């Protein structure tokens, strides 16, 4: 080895070593030729083992569409995708600063030469989502609303003053409302998407405000769809010192179905091919369920499944047939899961279901029934009708003891067992007394 002589070469190296964006140079099949340290660091947060040799393979489980985008791009050169979002995992994985969302740009320079940039945009994505919600909310604030219920809360989060609309809206008189928390005015929903007031106040302290929507509960037990905004009231003591005087809460009654927020959410949450929830929405829902399972001390279960020999379907019948299979299977599963279950496509041919409040046995039963439905479903493709099978893994989590990531890892480990045991089966299996 010799000391590098060339100053410019060394400066170039230092520049790419320190570059705050991941840079990768790949071949058409994803083989990595060159990459800088940050790209390697980002790739290490992917749950792929061993050498970083193939970028498309490493991203396969997170953004399966990248491979087809690259393979199907027929122009001699050009931008294949720009700032394409890759959702890596739930927000509670390992250390808190591990990336959750990557932004990926791929440019084709010539055959067998592609330049890829990767950047961690987790924080930005979170802020964007909150801003979008706020925009929608404020945008529709003046439409079709009767009036606003307003309450002021002390620093302890308890109501200390209300307007007359809030009394009318909730059915409690002013003296009854004093001392209550916002939570007391909301229905405790079994599917548990209600966030605790403490959590909402914490968010409000962090960002200045917090928005939520859910069933409000009137004094007479009636429910109504309620959007609520909590804003922080601060006293500026000096330039960088402030004290929290309390909070203002606006609660308004809205029509549940036709809000812009629902439409927008659906668009953001759905996988375009299968109409199942997408990976990002899956982790959002899993995190919400995790929080409420902690709060309510109840379990929740996850089922993951993977279509057996999916590559073979693509290879023998073409990618179109693979897409037909994904669409058909999603459709029968969406019809088969219960209301409250979340059915999502979380990888190329991998799906997952969240069962709020369910224990392991219920998850295994659901998996078994889906397995039978899939095996007996005819998939009509352009050329022929085919049948496929799937392997299932189930796991249960209980509140604080486990993170979403570790429950998902348990389900994936069970799925792997099912594959190894010969596919078209569920792990863990149904126990004897459940088998009919």
């Amino acid at each position: 080895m010799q000391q590098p002589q060339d100053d410019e070469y060394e400066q170039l190296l230092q520049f790419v070593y320190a570059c705050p964006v991941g840079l990768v140079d790949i071949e058409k099949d994803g083989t990595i030729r060159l990459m800088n340290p940050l790209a390697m660091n980002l790739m290490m947060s992917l749950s792929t083992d061993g050498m970083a040799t193939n970028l498309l393979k490493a991203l396969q489980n997170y953004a399966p569409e990248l491979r087809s985008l690259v393979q199907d791009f027929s122009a001699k050169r050009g931008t294949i995708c720009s700032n394409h979002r890759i959702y890596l995992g739930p927000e509670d994985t390992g250390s808190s600063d591990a990336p959750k969302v990557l932004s990926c740009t791929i440019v084709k320079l010539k055959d067998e030469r592609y330049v890829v940039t990767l950047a961690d945009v987790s924080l930005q994505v979170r802020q964007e989502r909150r801003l979008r919600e706020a925009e929608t909310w404020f945008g529709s604030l003046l439409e079709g609303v009767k009036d606003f219920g307003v309450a002021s809360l002390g620093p302890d989060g308890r109501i200390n003053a209300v307007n007359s609309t809030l009394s009318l809206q909730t059915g409690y008189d002013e003296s009854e409302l004093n001392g209550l928390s916002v939570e007391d005015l909301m229905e405790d929903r079994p599917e548990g998407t209600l966030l605790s007031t403490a959590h909402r106040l914490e968010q409000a302290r962090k960002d200045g405000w917090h928005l939520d929507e859910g069933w409000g509960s009137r004094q007479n037990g009636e429910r109504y769809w309620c959007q609520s905004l909590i804003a922080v009231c601060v006293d500026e003591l000096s330039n960088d010192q402030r004290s929290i005087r309390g909070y203002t809460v606006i609660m308004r009654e809205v029509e549940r179905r036709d809000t812009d927020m629902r439409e927008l959410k659906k668009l953001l949450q759905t996988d375009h091919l299968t109409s199942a929830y997408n990976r990002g929405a899956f982790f959002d829902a899993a995190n919400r369920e995790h929080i409420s399972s902690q709060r309510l001390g109840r379990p929740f279960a996850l089922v993951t499944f993977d279509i057996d020999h999916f590559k073979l379907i693509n290879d023998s019948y073409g990618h179109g047939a693979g897409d037909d299979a994904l669409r058909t299977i999603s459709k029968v599963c969406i019809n088969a899961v219960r209301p409250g279950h979340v059915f999502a496509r979380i990888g190329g041919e991998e799906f997952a279901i969240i069962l709020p409040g369910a224990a392991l046995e219920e998850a295994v039963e659901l998996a078994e029934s889906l397995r039978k439905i899939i095996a007996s479903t005819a998939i009509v493709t352009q050329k022929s009708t085919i049948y496929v099978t799937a392997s299932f893994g189930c796991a249960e989590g209980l509140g604080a003891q486990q993170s979403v990531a570790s429950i998902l890892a348990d389900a994936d480990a069970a799925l792997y067992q099912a594959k190894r045991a010969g596919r078209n089966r569920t792990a863990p299996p149904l126990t004897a007394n459940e088998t009919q």
Partner: protein
Amino acid sequence: MTSVFENISGAELEAMDDDQLDSVEFGVIGLDASGMVCRYNARESALAGLRRESVLDCDYFNEIAQCMNNFLVAQRFEDESEIDDVIPYVLTLRMRPTPVRLRLLKSSEMTLRYILIQR
């Protein structure tokens, strides 16, 4: 060679002068508590393609080796008071993904923290 990489003690490393450090067959990086590069041997210089004088006083995990700025390496130096561990790793030396073995050394007996790199 392997045995020196695995067996050399922190005290022996610290006692070496720059010439001695340059004579070992593996890369050696010595960092202070804030992550600044204080020692950098010839082998590491050749592997990374950077001269010692360009690297000294650099913020190692942010300017030179972002691929180690994670819970496997940089975070461990923050979290653990004593480390002597060998781990398999992949570095991007001169932009090429390269499998290596890292030995991480930190001890209350030593003034610096060390990363040894064996290709």
